[in-house]
């Protein structure tokens, strides 16, 4: 994998955009009429949720490429994407709970999107655990890719089954459904999280790739072998 510095730049750009969008959202965007200041968590919650789905979709694509074509680069990207997806879905659950308590009066609700995110968190968390427990790098790569494909196919099934089961969450917010005054902080933060995650993901993938290289490298020659060769 490359050694270029663009991921650092991308991470920095993401952080800067996040700082800008969040300052705008917290300080300058108008108060929402019904929910008040609590609504301002939307400026990080919605971008996190969008990017969580995006990262998990990327993990699915990495798993497909890794299974069909192989290659350690894709395994490294898969590892990074699963980790980032778990972190982001965990954040979505936490932010959602913080928002739900004052708005709905409960920390948790069995709404389709919330429950699906929790199922994803546990499903992909389990795959991370699987990667920890498999010592053979080849098996680890194939098994985690298979598990990601199987878990990703499950997402629509989980979503629709829970939706039939119960529903309360408000309809998805998108730039079309929210007032113009809220657009810009939401959009800036969405790209902020996207760039931040993309930069960190590439850096994490490089780290995973280097670890794989040391894992797969032949053991260093013993002292007697070196002595015999140089004699």
């Amino acid at each position: 994998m490359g050694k270029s510095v663009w991921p650092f730049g991308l991470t920095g750009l993401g952080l800067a955009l996040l700082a800008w969008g969040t300052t705008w959202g917290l300080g300058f965007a108008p108060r929402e009429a019904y929910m008040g200041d609590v609504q301002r968590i939307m400026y990080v919650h919605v971008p996190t949720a969008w990017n969580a789905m995006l990262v998990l979709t990327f993990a699915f694509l990495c798993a497909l490429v890794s299974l069909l074509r192989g290659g350690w680069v894709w395994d490294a990207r898969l590892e990074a994407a699963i980790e980032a997806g778990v972190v982001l879905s965990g954040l979505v659950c936490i932010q959602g709970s913080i928002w739900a308590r004052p708005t709905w009066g409960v920390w948790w609700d069995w709404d389709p999107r919330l429950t699906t995110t929790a199922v994803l968190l546990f499903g992909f968390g389990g795959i991370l655990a699987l990667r920890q427990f498999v010592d053979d790098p080849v098996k680890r790569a194939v098994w985690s890719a298979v598990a990601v494909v199987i878990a990703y196919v499950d997402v629509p099934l989980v979503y629709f089954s829970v939706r039939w089961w119960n529903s309360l969450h408000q309809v998805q917010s998108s730039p079309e459904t929210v007032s113009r005054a809220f657009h810009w902080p939401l959009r800036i933060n969405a790209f902020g999280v996207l760039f931040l995650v993309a930069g960190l993901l590439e850096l994490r993938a490089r780290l995973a790739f280097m670890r794989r290289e040391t894992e797969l490298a032949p053991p260093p020659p013993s002292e007697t072998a070196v002595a015999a060769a140089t004699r």
Partner: protein
Amino acid sequence: MNPFLAALRKDLLLQWRTRSQLVAVFVFGASALLLFSFAIGPNAAALRQFAGGFLWLALLLASTLALADSFESEMAQRALEGLLLLPADPRALYYGKAVANLLQLTLLGAGLVPVMVVLYDASTARLPGLLGIVVLGAAGLSAPGTLYAAMTAQVRARNTLLPLLLFPLVVPALLGAVKATSLLILGDPMGQLAAWTWLLVAFDVIYWSLCGLVFERVIED
């Protein structure tokens, strides 16, 4: 002999010869059913209302034991490597084991139904439908369960890892089975049974085909 039938015969024979294990798993499921009632208290109406959920939770917990066992014997003395050397499609191996697990879980579920009826006073008016749901739900557990058991049997911490991978995955199957069972026990005034049964069928079709496709990659060296 057809490789699938040969694999199925081998797995059924294995299960028959270790049938004391199945009895132990059944006792585990039945004691789980007994313990669940302590969570509710001696409230007959509430217990009947949750009977379907308890049945499936007991079967799910018991299934992790049964599924983990199914690959244990293949790991002993590296039997799996011997099987892979045979000139047979690994898919036959997978479907043989998955069908054997399905039969075992169905037997387990059918055995737990009377325990549920006795403990929770559940209605038995629609018993054939209930058994049909047990078969569909057991199929939903055994297809991904057999695949994951093949992975986790080869690693450390296998007993933790199998439920960790299986539980989040089977959420749709579990929901479908619980709702369908509850509707069969409590009555179905809104006619929702068909929708939940179709969800179960869809889950089964997707995972019985997908897991068969990828099994070869999981066990190859």
